[in-house]
């Protein structure tokens, strides 16, 4: 019994309550609050590192209130931490720490509740990652969601945050209720809420309509959180308006947690019961590809920095889902390292955007063109992170992308590589274009779009405009995150260890035995054979290729107007995607209509093949 498991989730909750109870005392003592918040987040990070290393050779299982399962039936709630789940929670805690350090000098005035909300958000994410009970998963999902809604609307004096928070809250609540309906259905069949137990009982029964519908309901809710097309519309609205340190968490981990939920539910609960692995692969692969391309196109035409980064997150979410979709250990390991690399780099990019907002008072690429020249360090950090986002080796992203590509090729989808390179090039080019234009004044300023100007004019009050210096507490976390984005890829034995963890994560029988009978399974069995994780020429070529392509496209976009032949055509990016632009209407009614439509499509696809 590892007492750290509950503490990792409960300590931030207790501190949040403590801060809130002492709010009258702490209101005028901002630094104490900041220090408490940072210390808590760092402590949780350390706890999770310990949990992660302890779980390397088998999941740590913790039964709350001491109710161990008797004869294979769980009567209490458990936490079951494996290396991947604890690692993701650890990533979340690390990003919360970075975001809170960044906030030290960022907000001019911050009410007591900011810290309490960040801590409840953190607790929600940790509990969600570690839990082994499907209803508990829903409860932590909701805690995470409710905290996130409030953090999105943290500046209610403006219009954008309210609209963003409403769209976010309504769509994600619909998602949560879909998840709950799915949980209820699987409970109706198995009379169990423990994931391992549901999985075991469903495997006995074999796939039927109830299993299919329960699975689709649960994953649809998680696809909404994971921002997969066509469930993704809320994301750009919420990201554009949430305070920058909060965006770090939204893009860096919250979206990925939705996808983690899909992986967890698939491999711990529905995998055996559902069978038909080919169909499952096809459905998720189609969603992933669609999302990767659509997100990249939206990203490339965007001029609002935060929205641009938000769309790039959507594109990457599609790639992560692809890593899950191939169902092989290498694919999942690739998704894991890709998530980690992306989180670190995307967090650095958001913090860089926050510094730009802090110093220059805008996030409008057009307006900012050439005005960031004096922000040298920020410029370097931003550019490096942008290159990392374009999967340049040795950033961890290239490993993730390479692994997913080779896993997909092994399963017979070599064209995944092409789609990945296209979306990496588009996303990388968009961010590099921003870096070149804003920090180095390259090329011509893009033509002004009045709507972007209107949106970004509202951004100023998050932090008071035009500061003379960039505080160290803002630069340092960003720099550390970029360096960490390289270090992750250089960890010794990363490939074998991650793949072994992925094999363990995917072995439903081993998970069942570990959770329900406390067995120790030293050698989990792989459904699909593990593959070579060494650095291959193909990975490097794909990484360098997309980085080079991104650089080229970024230069083309910056110097478009000076190209003699093409310039009369259209502004790159705008003409290309103008027709699909109106889908992102900002009206929540449309978003919910798309959710229902997507639900019908996913459900239909699975219903007609599995039955």
């Amino acid at each position, binding site marked *: 019994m590892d007492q750290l498991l509950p503490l990792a989730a409960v300590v931030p909750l207790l501190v949040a309550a403590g801060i809130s109870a002492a709010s009258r005392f702490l209101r005028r003592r901002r630094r104490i609050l900041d220090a408490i918040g940072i210390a808590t987040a760092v402590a949780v990070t350390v706890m999770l590192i310990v949990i992660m290393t302890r779980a390397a050779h088998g999941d740590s299982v913790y039964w709350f209130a001491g109710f161990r399962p008797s004869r294979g039936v769980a009567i209490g709630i458990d936490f079951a931490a494996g290396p991947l789940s604890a690692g993701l929670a650890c990533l979340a805690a690390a990003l919360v720490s970075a975001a809170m350090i960044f906030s030290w000098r960022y907000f001019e005035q911050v009410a007591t509740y900011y810290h309490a909300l960040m801590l409840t958000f953190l607790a929600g994410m940790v509990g969600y990652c570690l839990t082994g009970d499907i209803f508990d998963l829903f409860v932590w999902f909701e805690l995470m969601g409710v905290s996130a809604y409030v953090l999105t609307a943290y500046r209610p004096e403006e219009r954008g945050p309210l609209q963003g928070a409403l769209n976010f809250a309504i769509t994600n609540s619909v998602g949560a209720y879909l998840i709950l309906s799915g949980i209820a259905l699987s409970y109706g069949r198995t009379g169990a809420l423990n994931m391992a137990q549901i999985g075991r009982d469903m495997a006995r029964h074999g796939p039927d309509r109830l299993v299919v*519908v329960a699975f689709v309901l649960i994953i649809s809710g998680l696809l909404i959180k994971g921002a997969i097309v066509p469930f993704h519309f809320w994301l750009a609205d919420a990201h554009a308006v949430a305070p920058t340190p909060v965006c770090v968490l939204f893009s860096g981990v919250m979206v990925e947690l939705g996808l983690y939920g899909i992986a967890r539910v698939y491999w711990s609960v529905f995998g055996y019961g559902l069978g038909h692995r080919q169909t499952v692969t096809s459905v998720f692969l189609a969603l992933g590809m669609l999302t990767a391309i659509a997100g990249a196109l939206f990203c490339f035409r965007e001029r609002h920095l935060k929205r641009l980064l938000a769309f790039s997150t959507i594109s990457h979410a599609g790639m992560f889902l692809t890593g899950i979709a191939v169902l092989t250990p290498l694919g999942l390991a690739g998704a894991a390292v890709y998530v980690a690399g992306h989180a670190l780099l995307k967090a650095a990019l958001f913090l860089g955007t926050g510094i730009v907002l802090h110093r220059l008072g805008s996030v409008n690429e057009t307006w900012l063109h050439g005005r960031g020249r004096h922000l040298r360090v920020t410029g370097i950090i931003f550019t490096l992170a942008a290159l990392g986002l374009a999967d340049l080796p040795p950033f961890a992203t290239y490993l993730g992308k390479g692994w997913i590509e080779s896993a997909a090729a092994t399963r017979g989808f070599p064209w995944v590589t092409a789609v990945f390179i296209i979306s990496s090039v588009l996303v990388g080019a968009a961010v590099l274009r921003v870096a070149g234009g804003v920090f180095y004044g390259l090329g011509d300023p893009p033509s002004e779009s009045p709507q972007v100007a209107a949106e970004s004019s509202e951004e100023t009050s998050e932090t008071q405009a035009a500061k003379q210096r960039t505080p160290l507490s803002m630069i340092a976390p960003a720099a550390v995150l970029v360096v960490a984005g390289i270090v992750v890829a250089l960890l010794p034995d990363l490939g074998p260890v991650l793949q072994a963890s992925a094999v363990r994560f995917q072995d439903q029988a081993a998970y069942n035995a570990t959770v329900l009978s406390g067995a120790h399974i030293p050698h989990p069995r792989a459904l699909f054979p593990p593959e070579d994780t060494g650095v291959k020429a193909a990975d490097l070529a794909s990484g360098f290729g997309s980085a080079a392509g991104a650089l080229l496209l970024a230069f083309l976009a910056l110097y478009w107007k000076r190209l003699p032949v093409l310039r009369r055509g259209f502004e790159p990016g705008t003409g290309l995607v103008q027709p699909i632009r109106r889908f992102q209407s900002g009206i929540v009614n449309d978003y919910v209509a798309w959710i229902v439509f997507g639900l019908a499509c996913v459900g239909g696809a699975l219903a007609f093949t599995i039955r």
Partner: protein
Amino acid sequence: MTAAQRRWLFLAGAAGFAAFYLWGLTGLPGFGHYPGPYGDIINRIAVAQTNATGVVSAVNFEYRGFDTVAEEYILFVAAIGVSTVLRQLRGERERAARDEAVGRRVPPTSDAVRVLSLMLIGPTLVMGWFLASHAQTSPSGGFQGGVVLATSFILLYLAGEFLVFERVSPLDITDAVGAVGAGGFAAIGITAVGLGLAYLTNFLPLGSTPGAVSSSGTIALISFFVGLEVGAAFVLIVSELLEQTLLLRHRS
């Protein structure tokens, strides 16, 4: 999208989804045929194991108590969220002090309502307290009791005494009570950890008689803290929402 397009998109999706969902629902064992085993096992062991005769409370505060920790924090976040989102308005009041419906005559509270509300406050408080402290024996508990406790504050408002309402439940205090309620539950769990037991283990004596007020160990204690948290959260939410309209009206 135009309204028509949206409707068609939805209807197409909803038709497919409804068919799909109904198809799945028919796979259930049928109404009235709960298959078990989770609930049956709990029904069989709960009374002997916890000395609580209200099994739903035993599930909420003991077997699945950890859900309730998170759940209570959802309410806690909602309460501080409402004050976070509405906080700016408080600073703005001077600037934006106009009645949203200017021509409307606000009738004074009638004496009947006033007297009835004032008379009900005491019994409601007692009722809330009773419910919050009898989780282990009856279909009640901290959530139900907390809501009833909050109702008594709302009756105070209904009696036309909003200013009293504000004085009786100043936001800082309500906030602190809520935080103590939320933190208290989590702290009971930690106490068990300190004693070397699993988180939230029932470490108090269970009493000798099933269903007595003093029975069931931590269940009653947790229920009490939940009652505090729920009551405070609802008072906070309601007063924040009421404040939006009422003080404006008071000024004009």
